[in-house]
C-alpha cells in the first residue's frame, strides 16, 4: 500500500520534522569552513572568489533577518515590503556569486566529488539560500567559544 501525505500536511509537518531531527545533532548542518579553504588552497583567484561567497552569504543572511524583523514589527507595511525586495535581490546576487565560484572551480579542474559535498547546486535558488544561511551561521559558531 502506498500512502502519501497531502501537500498541505507536508508543509505543516516539515518544520516539525526539521526541528525534531535538528535536536538530534546540533552541528550536522554546519558547513566545513576548513574543507572549503582546502578546496581553494594555493589558488589566489579561487581564494578571492571564496571571500566573495562568504561576504555575499553574510549579506543574504542579514537581508533575511531584516526582512523577518520588519515583518514581525509591522506586518506587511512599506518597510517590510522594501526589506522583502532587498532580500529577493540579495538572494539572486548570492546565487550568481556561488555560480561564478563553481564555474571557476570547474575551470581549475575540481571534480563534482570534490565540490558537491561542500557546495549547493548553483542552479537551485533555494539550495543557494539554505547554503548561505548555513555558511553564515557556521561562522557565527566561532564568535563565542
Amino acid at each position, binding site marked *: 500500500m502506498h500512502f502519501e501525505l497531502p501537500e498541505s500536511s507536508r508543509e505543516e509537518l*516539515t*518544520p516539525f520534522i*526539521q*526541528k525534531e531531527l*535538528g535536536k538530534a545533532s*546540533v*552541528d550536522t*548542518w554546519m558547513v566545513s569552513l576548513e574543507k572549503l579553504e582546502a578546496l581553494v588552497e594555493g589558488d589566489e583567484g579561487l581564494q578571492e572568489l571564496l571571500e566573495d561567497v562568504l561576504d555575499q552569504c*553574510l549579506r543574504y*543572511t*542579514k537581508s*533575511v*533577518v531584516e*526582512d*523577518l*524583523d520588519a515583518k*514581525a514589527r509591522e506586518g506587511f507595511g512599506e518597510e517590510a515590503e522594501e526589506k522583502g525586495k532587498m532580500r*529577493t535581490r540579495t*538572494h539572486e546576487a548570492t546565487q550568481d556569486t556561488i555560480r561564478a565560484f563553481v564555474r571557476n572551480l570547474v575551470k581549475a579542474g575540481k571534480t563534482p566529488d570534490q565540490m558537491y559535498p561542500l557546495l549547493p547546486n548553483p542552479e537551485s*535558488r*533555494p539550495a543557494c*539560500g*539554505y547554503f548561505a*544561511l*548555513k555558511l*553564515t*551561521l557556521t*561562522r*557565527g*559558531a566561532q*564568535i*563565542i567559544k
Partner: protein
Amino acid sequence: MLDEGDRRKLLLEYASFVLKQIQGEDRKMAEGDLMRMQEIREEAGLDHLAMLQEIKIFTSGTVSR
C-alpha cells in the same frame, strides 16, 4: 514559557548580534552586546550553538523557491 512570536523576536535579535560580530570580525565584542546575548540565551534556555540551530531552522523555513 515564551510564545511563538516572542521566541522568534528573540531569535532575530540574537541573529542580529551574531551578524554584527561576523561583520566586524577583528573587533572585540561590546560588553553590552555580550550581556544581552547571554540574557537572550537564558530566556530561551539554550546555549549558543542551539540558538544558531534554532535561527537556522526558523530562517531556512522562509527561503523562497
